[in-house]
């Protein structure tokens, strides 16, 4: 039994498949006729399945732009993005929507929960767009909320929840579709240190138990310190990739 586990772990270590890779990713915004701003220049890196990594850098370093590209919310000016082996950077907008629904989960800094929906309904939201029957979606969402420790609060509206609780609802929502990658944009930005710790620990434990890939954009070195790898960005360029 032990042997088998060891063996499996070894295999995972060895051939850890690439879930995400970018090649020469460049995003240029034109401000007026002549002025162009390079939000991203020639960014290339790879992320393995099950990785728990962070992206750090000062404001305006291109972190969010990079996250938008990876999250299929935006398309690069140049360069390629592969998610789960699929070239996504050239896809039509409608295809990107499908991809987001199936492969990506989002955790936002400001939680971005729908205020009119209960915690449960917020978590069910992504399932609504997959056409899953309501009953099944409800069961799944309830489980997800229990997983993040909010089993008691599923009927509450966002304004009835604390910041940490709201962020945990967002985490449950991001995982409900069983995505390949969860993208978290400053997930602890609005939280105090204690709650911040709890949320990061939650992400880490979900990463370990479910094997989901997490990419966390953060300002906070303490958050970055918990991750396996840190991608450091500066002026739209990839400065370095540091292993923790």
């Amino acid at each position, binding site marked *: 039994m032990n042997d088998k586990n060891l063996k499996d772990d070894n295999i995972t270590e060895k051939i850890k498949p690439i879930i995400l890779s970018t090649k020469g990713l460049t995003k240029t915004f034109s401000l007026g006729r002549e002025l162009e701003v390079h939000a991203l220049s020639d960014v290339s890196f790879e992320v393995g399945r099950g990785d728990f990594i962070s992206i750090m850098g000062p404001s305006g370093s291109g972190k969010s732009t990079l996250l*938008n590209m990876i*999250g299929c*919310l*935006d398309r690069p000016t140049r360069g390629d993005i592969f998610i789960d082996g699929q070239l996504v950077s050239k896809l039509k907008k*409608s295809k990107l*929507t*499908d991809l*987001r*629904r*199936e492969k990506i989960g*989002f955790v*936002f800094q400001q939680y*971005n*929960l*729908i*205020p*009119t*929906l209960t915690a449960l*309904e917020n978590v069910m*939201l*992504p399932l*609504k*767009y*997959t056409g899953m029957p309501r009953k099944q979606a409800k069961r799944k969402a309830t489980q997800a909320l229990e997983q993040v420790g909010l089993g008691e609060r599923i009927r509450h509206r966002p304004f009835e929840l604390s910041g940490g609780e709201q962020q945990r609802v967002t985490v449950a*929502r991001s995982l409900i*579709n069983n995505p390949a990658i969860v993208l978290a944009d400053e997930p602890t930005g609005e939280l105090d240190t204690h709650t911040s710790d709890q949320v990061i620990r939650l992400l880490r434990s979900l990463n370990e138990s479910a094997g989901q890939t997490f990419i966390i954009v953060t300002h906070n070195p303490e958050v970055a310190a918990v991750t396996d790898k840190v991608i450091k960005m500066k002026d739209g360029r990839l400065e370095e990739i540091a292993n923790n």
Partner: protein
Amino acid sequence: MLEVLRNMWRRKLRTSLTVFGIVIGVYALTVMGAMAEKTNTMISSGAKFYTAQITLNGKGGIGMGAQLIPISAIEKVSKIKGVKSVAKEVSLQLSDKQDMVSFGMPDIIIGDDLSTPFLNKQWEKIKKIKSGRNLRKGDHNVVVVGRDIAVNKKIKVGKMMKVRGENFKVVGILEKTLTAPDKMVYMPIADARRLFIKSQPYLRDLQKQADSAKKIPKATLAAMPADSRKQLEAAITFKPENIVTGASVFWRSGADAEKVAKRIRKNVADVNALSPKDMKKQLDNFSLVFNLIIMGSGFIALIVGGLSVINTMIMSVSERKREIGVKKAVGARTRDIMAEYLMEAGTIGLTGGLIGLGLGWLTANAFNAHFASQGVEIFLVSQRLAVGTILFALILGIIAGIYPAAHAARLDPVKALRAE
């Protein structure tokens, strides 16, 4: 669906005002439409009657009682090829007050020519006696009364009824027809002529002159100055029985009514002959114009309501940009967002429609109940009106939602997520 309602309720005042806008529009459309529907039913059963005969009027329009048909013209018409019989009539307003305000048609006296059979087949179907009997040959100073008038004036068979100052015995009351006969009093043509002459000062004088002229011995007349003599001689020729205000022409079986009407127009100069087709056209035009005016005002009110739906939805979209961004981020397709907002706009329309229809229906019923004692019914909330109004409100809401919904669905997720 629940989410749609919750979203609508987020801005209670704004949503209520917008719904209220639709309510007013639908209310107007229901009330106005109910009036039009009532008139339509009246016209359509009236149309059946008028298309079963050729209707003759005095030249110069369909003036009630004002235009006389010369008796010579009636005689000419009855000799036209294809004409079976001509039933003369004398009609005038029931009320002798000119300033009476009334909804729709005024009450009317019809003097029937009982010596000629009235061969309008539709007439038998429409005009049924509720109590008492119909007019018959040899009657005088009796009336058969339409249902609305009977209810209004609490008239009973066997009792007397005062018509333009004279007493008439009520011999019959008609069943409700939902059209013109409800507001009519039928009497023998001779009685109607007498009332008609009394109502027209010129004819009244003529009759007086005729009566006095007849008493003047011939010798006295011959000794009079030429001017007065001529006038009196002319007066003597005045015969009340020559007074006719309208007539119904019936054609022989096998004859083409349109052709018969054409021949009448061609050969008899002093009458207007309206064939079944002419009459139908006239009635159709009338109901079209009537419907357009009445329904048009309702529609305008509703369109204004629709504009306020657009406004509300645009505001909702701009307030919820971030939510739209989130929904798109988690995989909502363009059509998902579109559907959500169209549903919201449609719900606003439908809610307004239901409330407006309810209020309109209550108003129409209240009015009808209030005026029922006077035998007047001016509203009819028909099924097609109710269904049509609701559908219209729903569709209007959805159409008004298209632009805001499309705008929402096309938002760029990155920008939408950044919105405050």
